């Protein structure tokens, strides 16, 4: 994940324009400044939506751990497949039900069927919450 705080000490705002950042302040940029600024802008947007997802992923991991009674040592992360962790279909349905309760969403059978990893679940939650809120993210 890009560490944009290294480049921009001021809080990110939706109206961020690259002209607000003095070129002089960016000392760690290796390649052409224009390219870096573009990359910076994109990566800052990326970071914002990533941060929300990371929290969602963590919550999903927690629910999965509880359902499958996994020890704290066993690693569960975004790319963990439910089946590889030992979840059978009843576990998966219980996990989905747990996610619905935790995040206040409703998951259709079609969508539930396509969930096979923790990340899939987090992405679906993200999408359903966005649809619910009708809010757009940063432009």
């Amino acid at each position, binding site marked *: 994940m890009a560490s944009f705080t290294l480049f921009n000490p001021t809080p990110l705002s939706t109206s961020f324009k690259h002209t607000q950042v003095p070129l002089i302040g960016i000392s760690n940029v290796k390649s052409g400044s224009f390219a870096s600024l573009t990359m910076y802008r994109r990566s800052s947007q990326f970071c914002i939506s990533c941060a929300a997802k990371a929290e969602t992923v963590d919550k999903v991991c927690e629910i999965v751990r*509880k*359902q499958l009674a996994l020890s704290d040592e*066993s690693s569960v992360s975004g790319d963990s*497949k439910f089946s*590889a*962790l*030992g979840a*059978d*279909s*009843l576990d998966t*349905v*219980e996990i989905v*039900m*747990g996610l*619905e309760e935790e995040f206040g969403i409703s998951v*259709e*059978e*079609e969508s*539930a*069927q396509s969930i096979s990893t923790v990340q899939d679940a987090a992405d679906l939650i993200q999408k359903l919450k966005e649809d619910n809120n009708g809010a757009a993210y940063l432009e």
Partner: protein
Amino acid sequence: MNIRCFQRNFSAAFPPLVPLQLPSPMETHLWYILPDEVKNSALLNQYSELLSPCERESVSRMRGDQLKKRALLARALVRTTIARYQTNCQMNPRSLRFRKNLYGKPEVEWRNEDNFNPPPLHFNISHTSAMIACGVTVNVPIGIDIEEKQRRTKNNIIAFAQRYFSPYEVKVLTAISDPEVQRQEFIKLWTLKEAYVKALGKGFSAVPFKTFTIRFRDTTMRNFHPPESSVSEESDIVVESSEDPTDPANNWRCALLEVAGSHYGAICMEKDRIAGENAPPKLTVWKTVPFVEDVCVSGTDAVLVLGGIIEQ
């Protein structure tokens, strides 16, 4: 020459699988392994040699030795089970190929070769941590599901049922006052619903659990009896689709078993119109350790019919 024919030097370590006739129409063969009984690492290595590279990789991605072993035994069970059924010649379990249908249901991929008529064989597997089962039929699709009798849900049973089951099923479960009986009936219902969806083979989204109802029905009186009161061997299990309540999904036969004293097992298969709708379906069950021992357990305490009209 048909390269799939058994070759004597296939593997010196393997005694040949005891060959078997295909099940007859409206007959189910059920094979199960108890993983705890399979401890010999040399045997497990031999099973591993039966798998395709892709299957071996899937096994390796399972987290932890127990899950790896379970995944390995599941593939070994499917391969050895299907290979038992001789048609033209004995099949090599290692050379069987599998694919998924349009909706993800696994099936055998028979290779089209001259003089080879693929057997009209259908199978389905299910596993828990303590048992792996494979059901086999001819001509008609089959779905099976097994669940440990002691399985507990994390969620409240009625809340779960309200979310996923049909209104009628919720009513039946809610009417059960003893929480332990309620839990058992829930698990039985779950396995039956799973087995039906797996038999249909169209994926869970095609037949959401809420859109069909499983009923136990006393065939002599044609009245509904709540499961806890009178599930006799004469009670039939009926699937009703809520899409069309006037025409119950009579195409499918379900049976509910208790297996090895520890599991509920549900079998669902399509009726074979040619064989005759009224022919009582037959069931034969084996406990197996492939290449080591096959024990026919039908008619023993290891297999109790809890519902559905089926003969052992």
